[in-house]
């Protein structure tokens, strides 16, 4: 365990950024295609559902204060079973990292740099992630904190320019809510991004006070933000356009016009998204490395982080053939897949926890 403390504000910003991250660019188009005008409802209800599910982990964390995810499973299940559970958790983290890089590659090669070899983006991001992991959680938290004012300013600016082309008629005709689209079809959003939250338990012990409460706050802010972005896209681009294009937010930023000499600002806007992506990658990567270090009793994080970065880069190359398959896979399987680490494992741990406590008393 590191010797570090995070302030509540640092933790809050990590939670918000990690939640928004890839979902911010990838999901609005998908949601709008399914749920039409009511797509903005989806992040809210899935946010509540996702946070509700993560209460399982939060309960465990409250029972075992000042220890992290892997130590909890070790303490509850013992050495061998604890290690098996740890490996599942690590696997999930590696998968999330590969996903983030895969999405990043897709986005960059489809929109901004269409002729660049795609593994290069991932490699560059991972290089900095390795560095920050070696530097530790405090460096990571401070980096996040550093970006907060910048991002708030830019998001505010972006929203206020985008509102210029606002058109309420995009919300009309007020048709019946498409229940099918809002609920079952969009339920995958519970898993992505909200079920990735189990990684936050990793840094609970470092947070000064009330990490659980801060986490709840952060996740809900993230959900509201995603909802607001979806709302904004519906109001500016309209349902029809947004559901036809892969990255509506990118298209929106392409068409914003501050003044005739300041337009085409999608490059700038994309950079903020890249910061979000980077923070999620950096954080999840850090968690995976610490997890491996703890499971296999290794002191030096640098020794693990480089080969892990290579593994992640390799897997990220073969995640999906293209973005269409990515989205289809996500809609079909991600909920079941993430349930393993967000529902099955914590539920199992809680059951074992109760049994062992009863035995002791």
């Amino acid at each position, binding site marked *: 365990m590191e010797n570090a403390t995070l302030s509540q504000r640092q933790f809050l910003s990590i939670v918000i950024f990690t939640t928004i991250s890839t979902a911010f660019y990838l999901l609005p*188009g998908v949601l709008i*295609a399914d749920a039409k005008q009511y797509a903005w409802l989806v992040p809210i209800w899935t946010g509540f559902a996702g946070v509700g599910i993560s209460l399982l982990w939060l309960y465990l964390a409250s029972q075992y204060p000042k220890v992290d995810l892997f130590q909890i499973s070790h303490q509850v299940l013992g050495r061998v079973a604890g290690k098996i559970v740890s490996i599942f958790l690590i696997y999930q983290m590696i998968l999330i990292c590969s996903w983030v890089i895969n999405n990043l590659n*897709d986005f960059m*090669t*489809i*929109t901004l740099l269409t002729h660049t070899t795609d593994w290069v983006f991932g490699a560059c991001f991972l290089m900095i992630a390795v560095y920050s992991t070696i530097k530790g959680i405090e460096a990571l938290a401070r980096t996040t904190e550093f970006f907060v004012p910048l991002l708030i300013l830019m998001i505010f600016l972006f929203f206020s320019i985008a509102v210029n082309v606002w058109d309420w008629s995009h919300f009309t005709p007020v048709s019946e809510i498409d229940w099918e689209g809002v609920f079952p079809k969009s339920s995958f959003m519970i898993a992505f991004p909200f079920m990735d939250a189990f990684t936050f338990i990793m840094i609970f012990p470092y947070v000064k006070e009330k990490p659980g409460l801060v986490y709840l706050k952060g996740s809900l802010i993230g959900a509201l933000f995603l909802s607001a972005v979806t709302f904004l896209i519906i109001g500016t681009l309209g349902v*029809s356009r947004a*559901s*036809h*294009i*892969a*990255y509506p937010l*990118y*298209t929106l930023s392409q068409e914003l016009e501050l003044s005739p000499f300041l337009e085409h600002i999608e490059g700038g806007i994309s950079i903020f998204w890249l910061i979000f992506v980077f923070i999620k990658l950096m954080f999840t990567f850090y968690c995976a490395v610490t997890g491996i270090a703890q499971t296999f009793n290794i002191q030096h994080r640098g020794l693990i982080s480089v080969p892990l970065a290579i593994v992640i880069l390799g897997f990220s190359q073969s995640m999906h*053939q*293209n*973005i*269409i*398959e990515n989205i*289809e896979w996500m809609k079909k399987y991600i909920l079941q897949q993430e349930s393993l680490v967000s529902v099955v494992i914590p539920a199992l741990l809680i059951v074992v926890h109760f049994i062992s406590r009863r035995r002791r008393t």
Partner: protein
Amino acid sequence: MTPFLRTALPILFLSLMLQGCGDYREISDLAIVDMVGVDMDADGNYLAYFQVANPNGIASTKGGGSRSPIFTYEFKGKSWAEFTSKATQTVPRELFLSHFQAYIVSKRLAAKGLGDLLNFLESDPSRRMATAVFITKDSVRDIMNTYVPLETNIGKNLRNIQQLQVDFTGKEVGESKINTLLENFESSRLTFVSNIMLSSEKPITTTKRYESIDGNRGNFTYTGVSIIKKGQFLGELKAKQVAPLYFMLGKSKTLYQHIQLSSDEFADLQMLSKPKMKRRFILIDGEPTLQLTIKPKIKLLNIHQNKRLDSQTLRRLEKMFDEEMTDQVTEVLNLAKKEKWDLLGIEERISHTTGRGWTELKKNPDSWMRTKVTLDIKSSIVKTGVLVTTYEGG
């Protein structure tokens, strides 16, 4: 050592180096050739055209003046070596040939054979052989005597057109060069040389050209490739046949393909990089068989379809791309079989094989024609465009 020797020896030594001054070249005494055209007239006389850059003219076109940036000289002679001496009778400067950009050969000269021209070019040490070469059906005189918009030196213009074919259409792979012709001169390998033609009927021979807005007129157009074997013109392929040709050779960097999904649905695909390629050359029941496996990675550029794009459509598109490419390649191969062009270099493959069964085939120079070619194309769509579904309406 006496003081005398101490000064004299270094001077003597240095004076040896002064001999190098014999090779000096004063730039204002040179006629820098930008493009060379060669032709042969009906009487068997060689015609050579040298397009010489005019530094003052280039400067003045930038400043908006209208002095000619280039001049074309025309010479006639019985042998290639003759031209250098002929040139001195007209051109007031020494011809400087090492930096020219493009070589234009007329179709009638190519049909007679390029052997002696290639030999002559190779014997001159100052010439760069990695220079782009073009064959034209039009008169070389017209090609050499026209101005093109945007580029003041026409050789550069042609080279850029060639490079754009490499980068954007896959109708060229950057091998239409004099050194490729030389390398393949003694083997049975075929060389594919770019064909160009003038896009208007008449060349535009004055700098008035720069004052007209019409960009298309008096330009060059890429029209396909000529097939050259041992310096001899065999035939030509049209631009749309060239893409499948380079595709089956595994050389093209990119390629565009239009796919008709149904009567009102279609898609456009683009190959992203050089495809992975596997070639197996084996004997099946005593008959030589060339098995080609090509695995291109493609991008969906645009699709017009009435439903949301899903992976099933992508699978279907991949399959249709494979079929379409197989059809196109087979068509080119059938044409080649009819015309007896060995596009895939099978004759050379046979000569490089070892083992029983091949000896009989090696003896017969026409045995390559018996070779069966099987094609297996497995494409995968790895990128899509920004538009996921098309807009419907109207």
